[in-house]
């Protein structure tokens, strides 16, 4: 690895995308993800890639559909209201089994909401990022370095399972600056369609024509396609969950948080430990598939679980489901762009563990 560079989360992610071979980027301006577009508009022409500012979020995701359909690694990025606009295209991408990477640097909602950090799109991304029966891979980085590292993982798994991958960041991660390292020894090699025999690349008079499509008018045929896709999802669930445990080994209270909120939770846990409370943090890195085995392992000594989010409580449902309601699960959150402070998380921990200890 090379020396450290101070970068914004959005910029680190953009640079990492190029290093992951992302050849084409299609986007539309929206705060707080703008640096991704700005960075790629500078870098892409220098490395022989494509940066194109689309006329809308809808057009951008459909450009991704076309580009991914021709077998090329490509990406789009947006923030919450823009992601809502992209959901139609994401459904078609999932329905046509195309790999791509979609970035959501979340801001407050609903509606135009605000431009401050938020985690209120959890339900959308894990439950219904478009119409129909499908899932997308969801990664939740929590540092600038992880913003970079996750992109490569997202592209690799999207290709492996032929499905869209979403990086669910937030305005805090996108805008903060931290030192980040890239592997400078690795040569930048932008993607081609090799290894994707299904892609619409032009058949070159060498094979039957390829069709990229999500339309199946015969109900039984559509059901079969969907069932096959869900069998692939089972493989994803079995093999691709990721999570981090922080001081959970002896933890009697486990705080579950993802993304930037997990960092605040760690600070709160440090404060709690100083007061003699055995607390730890469980941080899911993949939100779909949800790390169910890992959370059960992390909570093996827990008497209580606290889920902390920048929302009114969305991931808390998955925590309860994963733990099968075996352990009481409570929630603390701030929303609308308000960032929860370690002190208020600590107060909640103390309230749950019997007041001032």
């Amino acid at each position, binding site marked *: 690895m090379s020396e450290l560079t101070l970068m914004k989360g959005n910029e680190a992610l953009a640079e990492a995308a190029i290093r992951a071979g992302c050849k084409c980027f299609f986007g539309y301006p929206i705060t707080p993800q703008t640096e991704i577009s700005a960075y790629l508009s500078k870098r892409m022409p220098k490395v022989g890639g494509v940066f194109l500012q689309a006329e809308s979020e809808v057009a951008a995701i*459909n*450009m991704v559909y076309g580009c991914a359909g*021709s077998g090329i690694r490509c990406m789009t990025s947006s923030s919450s209201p823009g992601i809502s606009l992209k959901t139609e295209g994401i459904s078609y991408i999932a329905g046509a089994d195309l790999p791509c990477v979609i970035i959501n640097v979340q801001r407050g909602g609903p509606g135009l909401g605000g431009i401050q950090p938020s985690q209120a799109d959890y339900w959308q991304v894990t439950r219904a990022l478009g119409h129909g029966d499908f899932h997308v891979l969801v990664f939740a980085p929590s540092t600038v370095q992880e913003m970079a590292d996750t992109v490569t993982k997202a592209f690799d798994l999207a290709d492996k399972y032929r499905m869209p991958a979403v990086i669910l960041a937030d305005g805090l991660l996108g805008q903060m600056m931290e030192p980040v390292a890239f592997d400078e020894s690795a040569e930048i090699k932008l993607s081609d369609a090799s290894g994707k025999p299904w892609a619409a690349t032009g058949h070159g008079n060498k094979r039957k024509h390829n069709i990229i499509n999500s*339309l199946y008018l015969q109900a039984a045929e559509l059901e079969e396609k969907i069932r096959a896709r869900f069998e692939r999802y089972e493989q994803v669930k079995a093999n691709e969950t990721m999570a981090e445990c922080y001081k959970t080994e002896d933890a009697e209270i486990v705080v579950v948080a993802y993304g930037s909120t997990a960092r605040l939770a760690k600070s709160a846990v440090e404060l709690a430990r100083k007061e003699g409370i055995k607390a730890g943090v469980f941080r899911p890195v993949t939100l779909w598939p949800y790390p169910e085995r890992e959370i059960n392992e992390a909570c093996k000594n827990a008497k209580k679980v606290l889920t902390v989010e920048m929302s009114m409580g969305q991931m808390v449902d998955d925590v309860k489901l994963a733990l099968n309601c075996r352990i009481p699960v409570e929630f603390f959150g701030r929303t609308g762009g308000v960032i929860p402070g370690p002190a208020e998380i600590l107060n909640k921990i103390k309230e749950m563990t019997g007041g001032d200890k």
Partner: protein
Amino acid sequence: MPEFKRPHALCDVPLHYCPGCTHGIIHRLVAEVIDEMGIEGDTIGVCPVGCSVMAYDYFNCDMLEASHGRSPAVATGVKRANPDKFVFTYQGDGDLAAIGTAETVHAATRGENITVIFVNNTTYGMTGGQMAPTTLPGQITQTTPYGRNTSVEGFPVKMCEMLSQLDGVALAERVTVIDPKSVMTAKKAIRKGFEFQKNKQGFSIIEVLSTCPTNWGKTPVEALQRLKDEMIPYYPLGVYKEGAVR
């Protein structure tokens, strides 16, 4: 004498189009041009939502099925990643001139180096004949049962006229396929569109006035007559713009 046979770029499968619909002729013309230019292996087509939704089964080149109206954006994604391939879209009027207006206008103004085949039959055929953006004033459709009233539903969109104002457009031409002469003109226009693309000269759109006997409630012959008597006066045939953008 050359033998009259199916172009290679057109798959040997039954088409689902209604009797008297001109989609079949237009498909054939596109396929003939692809054959004559010898580009089937280097061509990627994008088909729409509407009557030609299943065109991916009819063209022998690689195909993508786009969501409603988004074909020009999908084609942009394909073309930007594969600038040396031929990319065309095949779209109807609801797809191109209503739900996909933004994608059409912006692909055109970017001078996106693609060829758009635009089939205008003044109605939403696939869903049973509702008012389209191109439905003529007074025309009766399922959703204009008293005839299109321009004071309520506004006026038809004239795409070639509109797009010819944009600097990115290399070719905007309106043709039809109602008799042998117009079929030959249409084929020449489609060929021109692909030639412009070959020379990387900008966006081309060929609007083909088409019939929909089923939803117009006419016989195929009556439908051709209506196209001649009512559509052509409102949508005059001809070249609206021609010349390399770059």
